[in-house]
């Protein structure tokens, strides 16, 4: 029996599979999360850097505009160097050229215009109080621009440059940054510097507009670290921040973008949340599907287990049924029969049965076929088997057994199941079989190599009618004869074309048995039907039972028919041959024994009654001892009046000659009646 898987074991196995699947999913998710996190950070950094670059560019553009404006004015200044007063107009032009410009001035070297004094700087500046530009000459001892860095540096510089940002304490109270551009005279000597102040507020709008995320902010600082533009409101940033910075080339300004860590990964959060949701729903889906399939699998497994269980039980049933079958060993001690049975059930268990056993020197046998197939048929088969054993144990007549069987089966047969059965009792000494056939297929009798169906009117099936009467018949097997019994599984075996094996084929096969033993006959028939059926599925139980009678070489059984005498001479001849007895003695012994056997055939049994005579011959170095027995009416042939051989022919009665010949040939003749049998012992001196 195969091991059964418990529900727990099964669930455990499935759960392990599911957990492995989920684990793989989770590990995959984590790896993927870190991968996209890195990717997200990278793209966030790129975005921040790009934002900074853009901001820088915007600042550069804005400052560049100032530069362009101022640069464009320079030729005017250089052109008008001869007219110091014109410088005011030019200065105003510069100051008013852009709203960003808070003030502009043109300062000249010391004593460049002697008429104007030591200092000369025309300045136009935004006056916060009156919201207008005011012109004035700014240079003086108090405002000694000549000593200021921007001027000194401006004279030296080949091109324009931006100053460091500085706080305008004077008017704007704001950070300013100046663009300084040197002025050259016709000899290309630096004679002055144009200085344009712009407020950093103009840049602040740009810087403040930078918003990478809600709480990110951008600052503008000087190279020294002075905060020029920052977030408008004070805000505390907790936790980690990402800081990106960019020095604005040539402007002494540094742009810094600060992004809180949380916002840096904001997109990642979103996508990871989405991802998590996907993963979770994936896991749930896996769990759900697993659970469903586990349930289905479990159901399937249960069905499979049930099927397995049924199969196991059927296999056990088959074993039990096969164990009911008799073994040849049980009749081995009976040397006068060869017996072989074969049963191949169609569906594990079948409704066919056969049984045999030896009791009181008699072989009791039966073969039967229960209607239907499978377990119900097998059950009734088992019942019938035990009924046969019980009933046959104390009965001597087959018809009485059959009636008892029929009554037992008919009495309680709600499903109207019936049985065909052939039942017989074989006298192992004589080979005589009394049998009764309850609707079973006629067996084949193989006599002297000739096969024919046992042609007797069958009686009613078993289980059909209570108290039905059955009739017995008799059959005697001689040496080598076989009674071949079978069920319809043989004759109705179908091939793939749905043709049946048929009685004709069965008989033809049996006709070729020749001198085969019972076992070989079964084998041959089995092969024949197998060959016929080919690959078609076996549709019914196949059961065969061959009973072959083999008296020894020193035993001969003869029926009470004159024709049976023909067996005597070959039997004796064979015996003489086997025992190496002088063949010249054969005619005399043959004559004496023929007379004795003839006597039995003619007179032992009443007219019309079938009976047998059994002859046993033994030899030693001096004598051949023959014993002739029969179960006929007690009769002592020795007491019969012998012929008076001396009387004339006319006075002689015909008869009595036989006995005379026996006495004449045999050295000793004895008669006795024992155990219901006439026994005639004859001794012949060699």
């Amino acid at each position, binding site marked *: 029996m195969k091991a059964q898987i418990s529900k727990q074991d099964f669930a455990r196995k499935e759960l392990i599979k599911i957990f492995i699947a989920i684990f793989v999913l989770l590990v995959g998710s984590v790896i993927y999360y870190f991968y996209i996190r890195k990717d997200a950070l990278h793209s966030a950094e790129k975005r921040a850097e790009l934002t900074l670059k853009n901001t820088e560019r915007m600042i550069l553009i804005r400052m560049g505009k100032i530069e362009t404006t101022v640069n464009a004015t320079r030729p005017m200044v250089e052109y008008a160097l001869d007219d110091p007063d014109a410088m005011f107009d030019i200065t105003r032009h510069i100051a008013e050229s852009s709203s960003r410009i808070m003030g502009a001035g043109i300062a000249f070297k010391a004593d460049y215009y002697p008429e104007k004094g030591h200092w000369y700087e025309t300045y136009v500046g935004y006056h916060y109080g009156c919201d207008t530009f005011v012109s004035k000459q700014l240079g003086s001892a108090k405002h000694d621009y000549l000593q200021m860095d921007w001027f000194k540096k401006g004279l030296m510089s080949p091109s324009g440059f931006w100053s460091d940002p500085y706080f305008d304490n004077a008017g704007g109270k704001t950070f300013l940054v100046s663009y300084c551009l040197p002025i050259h005279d016709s000899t290309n000597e630096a004679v002055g510097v144009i200085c344009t102040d712009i407020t950093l507020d103009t840049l602040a709008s740009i810087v403040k507009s930078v918003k990478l995320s809600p709480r990110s902010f951008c600052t503008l600082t000087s190279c020294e670290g002075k905060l020029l533009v920052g977030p408008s409101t004070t805000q505390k940033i907790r936790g980690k921040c990402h800081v990106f910075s960019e020095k604005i080339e040539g402007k002494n300004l540094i742009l810094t973008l600060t992004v809180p860590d949380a916002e840096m990964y904001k997109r990642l959060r979103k996508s990871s949340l989405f991802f998590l949701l996907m993963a979770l729903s994936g896991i749930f889906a896996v769990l759900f599907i697993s659970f469903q399939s586990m349930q289905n699998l479990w159901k399937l497994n249960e069905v499979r287990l049930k099927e397995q269980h049924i199969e196991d039980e059927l296999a056990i049933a088959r074993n039990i049924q096969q164990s009911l079958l008799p073994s040849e060993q049980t009749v081995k001690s009976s040397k006068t029969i060869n017996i072989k049975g074969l049963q191949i059930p169609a569906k594990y268990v079948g409704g066919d049965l056969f049984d045999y056993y030896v009791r009181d020197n008699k072989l009791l046998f039966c073969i039967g076929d229960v209607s239907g197939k499978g377990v119900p048929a097998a059950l009734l088969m088992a019942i019938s088997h035990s009924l046969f054993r019980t009933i046959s144990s104390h009965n001597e007549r087959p018809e009485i057994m059959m009636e008892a069987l029929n009554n037992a089966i008919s009495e309680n047969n709600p499903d109207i199941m019936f049985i065909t059965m052939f039942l017989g009792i074989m006298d192992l000494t004589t080979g005589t079989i009394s049998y009764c056939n309850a609707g079973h297929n006629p067996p084949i009798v193989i006599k002297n190599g000739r096969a024919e169906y046992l042609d007797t009117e069958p009686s009613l099936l078993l289980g059909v009618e209570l108290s039905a009467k059955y009739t017995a018949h008799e059959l005697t097997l001689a040496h080598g004869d076989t009674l071949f019994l079978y069920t319809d599984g043989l004759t109705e075996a179908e091939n793939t074309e749905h043709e049946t094996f048929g009685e004709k084929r069965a008989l033809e096969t049996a006709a070729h048995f020749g001198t085969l033993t019972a076992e070989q006959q079964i084998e041959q028939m089995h092969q024949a039907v197998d060959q016929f059926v080919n690959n078609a599925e076996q549709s019914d139980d196949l059961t065969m039972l061959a009973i072959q009678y083999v008296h020894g070489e020193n035993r001969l059984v003869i029926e009470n028919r004159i024709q049976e005498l*023909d067996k005597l001479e070959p039997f004796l001849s064979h015996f003489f041959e086997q025992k190496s007895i002088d063949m010249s003695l054969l005619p005399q012994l043959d004559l004496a024994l023929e007379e004795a056997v003839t006597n039995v055939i003619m007179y032992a049994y009443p007219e019309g009654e079938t009976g047998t005579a059994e002859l046993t011959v033994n030899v030693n170095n001096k004598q051949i001892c023959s014993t002739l027995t029969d179960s006929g009416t007690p009769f002592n042939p020795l007491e019969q009046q012998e012929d008076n051989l001396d009387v004339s022919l006319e006075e002689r009665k015909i008869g009595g*000659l036989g006995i005379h010949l026996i006495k004449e040939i045999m050295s000793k003749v004895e008669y006795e009646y024992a155990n219901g049998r006439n026994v005639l012992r004859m001794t012949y001196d060699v």
Partner: protein
Amino acid sequence: MEITITESGNQIIATFDGRLDTVAAQQIEETITPLLEHADQTIILDCEKMPFISSSGLRIFLKIRKEVSAKGGKMQLKNVCPDVMQVFKMTKLDGIFEIL
């Protein structure tokens, strides 16, 4: 067992071929009727090919012998083999049958 009956002049010759055992005796019961019908003549039974005779066979011979005696004919046996002769001797029939 086969019996061939031939007529030669006033003699009837019956040739026995095979064992004249009980079975054969029963079979030839009819076959010998022509012999019985000619019981007034000389009937010669040729036993050359008859190796065996049983009491039933003897009875066939006796039956013919009886008929011949009644009708004034003759029954003669010829070519009797030793085994059959032995049987005649055992039954004292060697004195009754005319054996050539």
